[in-house]
């Protein structure tokens, strides 16, 4: 199998070297272990692990966007088909459920306990279970916890889904409230909350430097606050719908 260079010592110190080919040599246990080790290492290197995906999402900004795009393009169809098969819903509802699940999982990942569900399931399984739960919630909006969570982590994910679905009114009010501050301020607020760094925000918005970006962020926040202060009914509505 392999050629081995063996040194043939006729005396001490060594005087001659020769190469011996041993094509019929039976591979030893060490050889087999090495091959298995090599294969395992290489095959594990084919894709990012869940842990690495979560790390990328937690970084926020472009890294988070890119990672979710890869996840959706890789697993999206599988998850949606599983949801359709399980719940009997149509494709658009499955996609809606999946998108809600992604938002919920994203929130969960970016929280301080972002890694906890990896102890019980893979990210893909977690996403699929959350999607099924979301579709069931959309189909039977009145009832909660149609699918029993088998772990605490799933329970937490389903909570995120519940929260999203129950905040429809909040989102409508928020959308109305944000209309008053202009697209530029909305985009700054969005980028900031998407986890973009000041440097990235500066590059995206065309600001000179990070200090300007920081000032613009405060300006956008102040603008929204003043808009709310000038329209106190928004505050009332938001408090009612977003904080229960």
């Amino acid at each position, binding site marked *: 199998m392999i050629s081995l260079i063996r040194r043939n010592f006729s005396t*001490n110190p060594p005087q001659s070297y020769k190469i011996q080919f041993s094509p019929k040599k039976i591979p030893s246990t060490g050889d087999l272990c090495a091959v298995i080790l090599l294969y395992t290492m290489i095959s594990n290197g084919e894709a*990012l692990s869940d842990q690495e995906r979560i790390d990328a999402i937690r970084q926020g900004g472009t890294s988070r966007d890119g990672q979710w795009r890869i996840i959706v393009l890789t697993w999206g169809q599988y998850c949606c088909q599983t949801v359709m098969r399980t719940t009997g819903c149509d494709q658009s509802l499955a996609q809606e459920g999946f998108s809600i699940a992604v938002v919920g999982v994203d929130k969960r990942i970016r929280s301080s306990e972002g890694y906890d569900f990896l102890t019980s399931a893979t990210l893909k399984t977690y996403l699929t279970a959350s999607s099924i739960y979301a579709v069931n919630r959309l189909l039977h909006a009145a009832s909660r916890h149609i699918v029993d969570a088998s772990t605490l982590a799933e329970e937490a994910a389903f909570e995120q889904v519940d929260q999203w679905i129950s905040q429809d009114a909040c989102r409508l009010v928020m959308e109305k409230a944000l209309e008053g501050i202009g697209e530029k301020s909305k985009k700054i607020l969005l980028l900031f909350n998407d986890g973009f760094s000041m440097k990235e925000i500066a590059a995206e918005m065309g600001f000179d430097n990070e200090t300007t970006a920081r000032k613009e962020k405060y300006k956008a926040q102040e603008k929204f606050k003043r808009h709310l202060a000038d329209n106190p009914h928004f505050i009332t509505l938001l408090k009612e719908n977003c904080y229960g």
Partner: protein
Amino acid sequence: MDNYQLADRVEAWMQGRLTTAQITELRNAMANDPAMAREVELHRLTVQAGTFLANQRLKNNVLEWLQRPSEPVPATEEVVVNAWRKWTIIVAAIALLLFLWAALEYGNIRQEQQKNWQLEQENRRLQELLEQEDRVPTAPSVPDDSISIKPSTEKKSGGTGVVFSPMAYYVPPADLGGVLRRNDTAPTVAQSLDLGVAAFKNGKFKTAERYARQVLTTDASQREALRLLAFAQFRQGKFLEASHAFSGLSTIYPSKKEEAEWHLLLCYRALNDGKTAYKALLKRILANPDHAFYANAQQLK
């Protein structure tokens, strides 16, 4: 605390980055200052608005990506990371295998080296023993032949399982190469035989064997050459070949028959083979008190 600091503090609070003491401090400040409490409330709503926008954007993006399932997975950093990782792992694995292989080889080499060293030491010891035995003067067993014999020390010790040393009983040939037969005048034969005898006397038995073979190739009937060949092989420890030569010699060289028989006996003994032949030959020598090597054979009895 200005508005910027307050905004940072509220964001930290909402992101869970404040300690319990800091939260308590902020709450106390809010309780004592209604304007600040209002400002905090507004900022909380602002942060919530940003979160809403971010979630909405992600959701819209997901729906958009799902509409384009045929789009290939982008070659983003994941692919680059994978490529780097893959090659790094391959290189590391190969390096690891090479290291293991080198370690194993090194171990084998050391073992082999040790073994060779021990063998060499053993060889040296045996060589010294042989030389020592050669140097011991031998007492003549037969008055008119100046042949001496020195029984081996092992034999004297009388212990069982002691290795038999034929050299201890070896009797150097007295007149090696002395008489040439007809055609002896051929220059190559005489010259080669002389050189062979000289080599033998100088202890170069291998050279002596070569010259003896050279002579026998030219003239196969040369008994002296056969005798030289037999003794040269005997001294090199080639007992099997020597036994053939001595056997032939005892047939074709009557005057040296007894000498050939004695050394043939030693060869048989050294080979530890053909015990029947050995015993028969020993018995034959012992049956003849006039045999030139009768006394020597007595010691082997």
